[in-house]
């Protein structure tokens, strides 16, 4: 038989990040038993009875509601009414991140991306994981969500720290855990085009381009005893040879070659100079 007695049911979930959850409440004088019901989204999940004010149960992280009542308040074994539903959260446990395998600290100028493979322990109740990449100022520059406890980040050169947290389907997030080591990715400067072979008679300059780059060639001319270099032409070449027009005027010529990647980064210049002389027949007698 239910009594009209209302009790203040103060619940203390003690270890809300663990799968074994311990509940404790203030003892009610004269009570011989305690009943507890736990529900999630109006669906009753657990109905428990205990003679003490503490009990343990296994629960997955999530958002729940709990209510309780006491029994045996008098000799008629009277029961209190159910308390009101009170919500509580069990947050997912923090993940444990495995040590990073060796990563590509210096990245190729053709991509400027380093692959960072990450793995961590699965968090109980996690529906997804959020990986935040922060720059050295602490600003999140990159954030990914993954369902499994692993991710492959592709990072550009920079100095980063990585933080991972688990998230339940209810939107509850675990404590964020930082990767112990910071990640530093350096750029490999774009190398200059190599092994230049100048063929004056063929009006060509052969070079070995750097993979993933194009070669920008500038042809400039300076008159003998002059001081200024004047641009004759500039070309962006995808191949390995530059040819210039055959009817260059006599003077001093300078070929400047740069490797250029798709990010607009350029190498140091490779310079080759040559002279164009007049033919005897072109000069006055």
């Amino acid at each position, binding site marked *: 038989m239910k009594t009209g007695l209302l009790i203040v049911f103060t619940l203390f979930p003690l270890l809300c990040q663990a799968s074994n959850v311990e509940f404790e409440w203030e003892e009610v004088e004269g009570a011989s038993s305690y009943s507890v019901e736990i529900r999630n989204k109006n669906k009753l999940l657990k109905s428990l009875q205990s003679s003490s004010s503490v009990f343990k149960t296994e629960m997955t992280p999530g958002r729940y509601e709990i209510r309780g009542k006491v029994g045996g308040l008098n000799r008629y074994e009277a029961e209190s009414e159910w308390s009101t539903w009170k919500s509580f959260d069990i947050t997912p446990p923090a993940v444990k991140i495995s040590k990073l395998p060796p990563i590509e600290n210096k990245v190729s100028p053709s991509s400027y991306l380093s692959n960072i493979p990450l793995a961590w322990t699965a968090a109980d109740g996690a529906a997804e994981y959020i990986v935040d990449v922060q720059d050295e100022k602490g600003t999140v520059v990159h954030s990914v969500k993954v369902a499994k406890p692993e991710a492959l980040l592709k990072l550009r050169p920079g100095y980063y720290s990585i933080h991972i947290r688990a998230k339940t389907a209810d939107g509850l997030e675990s404590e964020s855990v930082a990767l112990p080591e910071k990640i530093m990715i350096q750029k490999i400067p774009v190398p200059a085009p190599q092994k230049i072979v100048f063929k004056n008679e063929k009006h060509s300059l052969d070079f070995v381009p750097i993979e993933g780059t194009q070669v920008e060639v500038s042809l400039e001319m300076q*008159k*003998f*005893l*002059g*001081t200024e270099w004047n641009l004759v032409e500039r070309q962006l070449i995808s191949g390995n040879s530059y040819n210039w027009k055959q009817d260059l*005027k*006599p*003077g*001093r010529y300078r070929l400047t070659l740069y490797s250029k990647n798709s990010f607009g980064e350029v190498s140091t210049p490779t310079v080759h100079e040559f*002279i*164009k*002389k*007049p*033919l*005897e027949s*072109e*000069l*006055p*007698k």
Partner: protein
Amino acid sequence: MKLLSGFLLFIGLSVVHAETKSPYPQDLAPTGCASSEVFKNSYSYLKKNKELPFNESQLLKAALDINKGCNGADKRFQRVFELLVKSGVSIRKCYELAVDFAQMTDQKTDNFVALFKGLFLENKFDMDFETAYKASLQLSAALPKDWMKVRTDFQAFLNFCDNTKSEEVPVRLCAEWTLSLLKHEDKFPLGIFPSFQTLNSYLTGRRSVQLPVKDRLNLIREILAYGPRAPENFQSSLDWLGSKSGPALPPQKAHVVALEIARNSLQVELITDTEKSLQP
């Protein structure tokens, strides 16, 4: 109308021509400069030239500068200016140097043009521009009396180098020898090349000591630096030192002594130790 205009233009040109024509017979022509003609030619040439960005006052000044060179100055200016422009020289330098040559003689201009072409062009000595330019200026300007001799010798060396060129003696190295030999041109009244040729034939023909071409040319250069008597002194000493009528030295030793003797071919006033001790 067109016919009339053409006729008037013809009359006009005839008058101008009549005015500029010298009234003197050729053999009685007065000495001096035809400065008016030189000025007009220079002015017209400069005005037509699109490379020179001269305004009117600059044109007048330039024509007057050229005019200071007297007869032929306009031609010398044009020749040097065109040579340098077509060789790829900066227009300012072309102008400055051409004005300089306008003030010089035709012979110096001829020498400069011949030397510059010979030293610079790919099918000749193929030297770098700076060397060719400086050497041709120095050689053409420094030897006012021997202008024809320098050119003849230069051409002879050019032919010699072309015939001798090999991996051991490339044309450019031969060109450097030529330039160093031409510096001694003033010591050789008949030109330095005949002496070079005689000495070269003598050394090539010696069977006892056969020098590699490079060493032979270095030796000739050294001997010729001691003047026109040095080749003869070297040859005669070398022959005598190795002969039985002389000390019959072994070829290498005879060679060293003969060179020592050749070094004394130039008459120099020596200061003795006694004289040195008397100097304050």
